[in-house]
């Protein structure tokens, strides 16, 4: 149906878009192995110099530690709350179901600065000191939807007859949940958890407004890019963040077939 020239043109366009999407990330990885201190292309040579420097820096290590800590607590909270919401929405047909959907995706669809400023005002005027806990609260708010999407997508694709069979065989609601529902959902839950962790690990805007003196990894990176003094280490740290955010997507897409990985609401 599409003419041969159109097809060829589309093919070229697709290739160009792919280059556009991936060249920047490849460039960062190459810079991480730069042997010189000077940020210029082409890089002087390959070395592990800055990788060693960055991984032995106590400031960087403590920022990594804090980001992992925040990410893990956020993931745990998002897992519980997101799964509960997915279970509730899955079988229910009630008025306001779309409203719940909309509400959950709002923190990801609205600019982070709005969630950030709103939470900042909430904590400041509520007399709550900014701390690790307030960062976690901010992160959980936008990570819930990620777990929700994955679990809901899986529930939609699972046949209800499986649960009915379990019940017919005498399992009560909780046995069905433990022995049938959970195993069926496990990969979707893992996928949701990893994506939530990735999202939290990289988050900068909401963190800026909900952190006190805490330096998460993105906050450290942002400050160093503006400062411009330690860009060789920044290259290394930024490459690490890319890996931490990319690997979960690859695994999640494998585990779920891409069901909940698109970032908007599951339908």
């Amino acid at each position: 149906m599409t003419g041969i020239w159109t097809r060829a043109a589309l093919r070229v366009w697709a290739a160009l878009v792919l280059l556009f999407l991936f060249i920047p990330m490849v460039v960062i990885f190459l810079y991480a192995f730069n042997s010189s201190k000077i940020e210029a292309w082409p890089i002087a040579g390959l070395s592990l110099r800055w990788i060693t420097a960055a991984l032995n820096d106590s400031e960087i290590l403590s920022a990594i530690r804090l980001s992992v800590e925040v990410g893990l607590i956020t993931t745990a909270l998002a897992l519980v709350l997101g799964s509960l919401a997915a279970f509730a929405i899955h079988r229910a047909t009630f008025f306001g179901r779309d409203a719940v959907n909309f509400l959950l995706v709002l923190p990801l669809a609205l600019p982070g600065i709005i969630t950030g400023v709103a939470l900042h005002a909430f904590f400041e005027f509520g007399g709550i000191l900014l701390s690790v806990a307030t960062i976690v609260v901010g992160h959980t708010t936008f990570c819930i939807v990620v777990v929700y999407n994955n679990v809901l997508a899986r529930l939609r694709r699972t046949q209800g007859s499986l649960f009915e069979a379990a019940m017919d065989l005498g399992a009560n609601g909780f046995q069905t949940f433990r022995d049938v529902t959970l195993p069926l959902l496990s990969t979707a839950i893992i996928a949701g958890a990893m994506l939530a962790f990735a999202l939290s690990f990289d988050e900068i805007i909401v963190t800026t407004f909900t952190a006190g003196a805490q330096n998460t990894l993105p906050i450290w990176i942002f400050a160093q890019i503006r400062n411009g003094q330690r860009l060789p280490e920044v290259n290394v740290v930024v490459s690490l963040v890319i890996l931490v955010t990319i690997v979960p997507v690859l695994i999640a897409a494998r585990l779920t077939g891409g069901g909940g990985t698109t970032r908007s609401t599951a339908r």
Partner: protein
Amino acid sequence: MTVDVARRPRPKAGGAVFLASLFWRWPGLRTAVLLVPPLAWFVVVYLASLVLLLVTAFWTIDPFTTELVQSWNLDNFLQILQEPTYLRIIGRTVLMAALVTVTDAAIAFPFAYFMARVASRRTQTLLFAAVLLPLWASYLARVYSWILILNHGGVLNWGLTSVGLPAANLAYTDVAVWIVFCYIWLPFMIIPTYSALERVPDSLLEAASDLGARGWRVMRDVVLPLALPGIVAGSIFTFSLTLGDYITPVLIGGGTSFIGNVVYSNIGIANNVPFAAALAMVPIVIMAAYLLIARRLGAFEAL
């Protein structure tokens, strides 16, 4: 072989079983119990914060003591609407968001069309993964990468000079901000456009050509209208996320202010939360209007 139902081992009747049968009998109760914790979180933390944001916008800061004055007034909004500086900033931000949205739609549409209607099943899966990766890959890293590309000794200038073209020093300009925004949000545009295009039935296109429509005519009168909800769904993200971003202008912009920057500096340096809150209302109001239009265009079904 019959089994005596009465003698089948019954699960122990504890609280769990009681709850299970209760939920079985009243599914509404089940929904309510499950929904309370996540909804409570959203209402107590998120909605309360948004409401407080709105309320704060009507308060002011005493310019001498920097104490919060909790008396209702429209000073912040009047300042935003009366000072040409702020109106210019708002106009510039909206223009940037619109430019980014249009550019992304133009880049995404042919790509999504190729993915959905030309590529083989295998290529389709690969391309989908190739779009998902940058969608999730570190936002901060992807902004930063453009400093390495656009700066004076960066990849772009190296490429230009090695083919004999003059160097283009794009870093720290508004053009750089535009490029980076387009780059960052592109996957958000590709995915819904692709989903919309994939749902267009082949028979419809065949019918169009049977009725004598040529390639471009089919594209304009059949494919584009059907893809529109997807494009609009993507534009919700590209437009909204550009409206509020401050990281990109701060890191790679030439010092021009966008809404996000001004909000950011009012929280950080000036510590004028009420004014920041009032200014943050601007993207919310613009997005609310945008969402109303988007719903008219059927974008919510494509989200």
